[in-house]
């Protein structure tokens, strides 16, 4: 293939992605510096940092930022610890392993809106839900999950969806672990913990960091679960940054402020992205 043709073949994907990135990005930055509210089209003009300070001084901003961090942090800990445990548990031959695998990873393929509804109604509903039935059966008052611990409820739902992701990755990665090495260690009398610490964990170091980084990208942007279950409430107890920006744009129609919020979200995501790109770059052999 001659170089000119190669360039022509590569051009479409590069140009299209560049447009897809640069046009919305520059518009977001531009909108964030002007007065732009769909309800008051007559108000225009450059406002500098006003939208940013307006967004940052919104009483919901602090809680939303904290909620975002709690949400991401808790889900990461839960999914990585549970994912590691389960994938080590089933990392041995047994009958029905294929079925157990399929059962374990299935939640990851469920639509986020479906998973949110199933948890909200059939499991967590304080009157007719399954958890309430259990609580009643053992004689305790059912918990009003979405009312009393909204953020925790969202954490449970998201963890249910993403632990399977961690299991899937760890399981795959464990299969490529050197079995002879493991057997040799066992013959030498290495116990479970020393095997885990010295062989398994180093082997899983990269998959773990990739799982963490990829989940961070997705969890910073959690939307559907909150939209369907708590709508960010009660109050702002389960509002994250994504949801707050959504509210600003769809309910206050304030393009300027929503864009300033968008810039916050972009910066936050990019801090994570830098590390992820580096981790992936190391593995890409060209």
């Amino acid at each position, binding site marked *: 293939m001659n170089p000119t043709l190669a360039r022509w*073949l*590569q*051009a479409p*994907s590069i140009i*299209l*992605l560049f447009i*897809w*990135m640069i*046009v*919305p990005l520059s*518009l*977001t930055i531009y*909108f964030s510096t002007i007065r732009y509210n769909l309800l008051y089209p007559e108000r225009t003009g450059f406002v500098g940092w006003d939208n940013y300070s307006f967004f940052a001084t919104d009483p919901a901003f602090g809680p939303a930022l904290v909620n975002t961090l709690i949400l991401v942090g808790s889900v990461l800990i839960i999914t990585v610890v549970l994912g590691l445990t*389960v994938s080590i548990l*089933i990392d*041995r031959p*047994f009958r029905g392993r294929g*079925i*157990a*695998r399929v059962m*374990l*990873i*299935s939640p990851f*393929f469920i*639509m*986020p*809106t479906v998973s949110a*509804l*199933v948890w909200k*109604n*059939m499991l967590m509903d304080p009157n*007719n839900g*399954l958890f309430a*039935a259990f609580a*009643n059966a053992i004689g305790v008052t059912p918990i009003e999950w979405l009312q009393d611990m909204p953020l925790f409820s969202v954490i449970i739902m998201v963890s*249910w969806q993403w632990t399977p992701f961690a299991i899937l*990755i760890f399981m*795959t*990665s464990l299969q*490529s672990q050197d079995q002879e090495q493991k057997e040799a260690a066992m013959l030498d009398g290495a116990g479970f913990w020393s095997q885990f610490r010295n062989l398994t964990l180093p082997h899983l170091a990269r998959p773990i960091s990739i799982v963490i980084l*990829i989940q961070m*990208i997705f969890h*910073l*942007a959690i*939307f559907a679960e909150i*939209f*369907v279950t708590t709508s960010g409430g009660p109050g702002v107890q389960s509002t994250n940054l*994504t949801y707050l920006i*959504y509210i600003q*744009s*769809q309910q206050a129609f304030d*393009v300027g402020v*929503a*864009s300033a*919020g*968008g810039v916050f*979200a972009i910066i936050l995501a990019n801090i994570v992205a830098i590390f992820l790109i580096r981790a*992936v770059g190391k*593995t890409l052999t*060209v």
Partner: protein
Amino acid sequence: MTDKQRQNLINRVAVAFGWIAAILFFFPIFWMVLTSFKTENQAIAIPPLLFFEPTLENYTEIQERTNYSKFALNSIITAFGGTGLALLIAIPSAYSMAFNTGRWTKDILMWMLSTKMLPAVGVLMPIYLISQKLGMLDSKLALVIIYAMMNLPIVMLILFNYFREIPKEILEASRMDGTSTFNEIRQVVMPLAWGGIASTALLSIILCWNEAFWSIVLTTTEASTLTAFVASFQAPEGLFWAKVSAVSTLACAPIVIFGWLAQKQLVQGLTFGAVK
């Protein structure tokens, strides 16, 4: 107890706990499917019913009384359309990058990946307003384009990895025979990379099908996909659990099966090729 016996015992206990985890994780899905075969009264019965006479009325009713088929069709069109468009753009590019790897190839791929890190909510306003200006709010075409661009970086990266595994000698042989580039792609590369392309497509379809931000924000009635349709059941008190379950079961079944089939490629695709 000998070492072997001990090892045996450990294995059994581990497997037992593995099954418990599997059952717990699968339970909500099982319960959803079960509920879809109950009547509305059975669905909210206290205590919850495990055994009952199953009915198909929810499934017939959602076909007759809601626009389920329309939304399902929208999901199919946007997921397959977005995937098709992404493949159309990516196949020639990834092919050219894999066989004409240059100094910048790796940087270009990494840059492409970095566009994936742009949070959707960060560009919500521009995309919304542009769609509005172009009269593409609530249009399937807008979703097809967005899904294609959203998945293009992942599709590029996986295809690049697949194409690179094709032995160069085969291509050189065909070149000696004077095959044109177009025929080279069609007759030599495509058959060899077919499996890779198919599984890449599967991954992209799964991601499009379950996408729930743009479909909720950009559509109202005409172009709504199943994710948005299901979200509309969030009504207070969540009535009609049985019907919601039937809709959900239908909406998730094909994708869960796709997911089972594409496990290996999913790992590669979701980790951007870093775990194989």
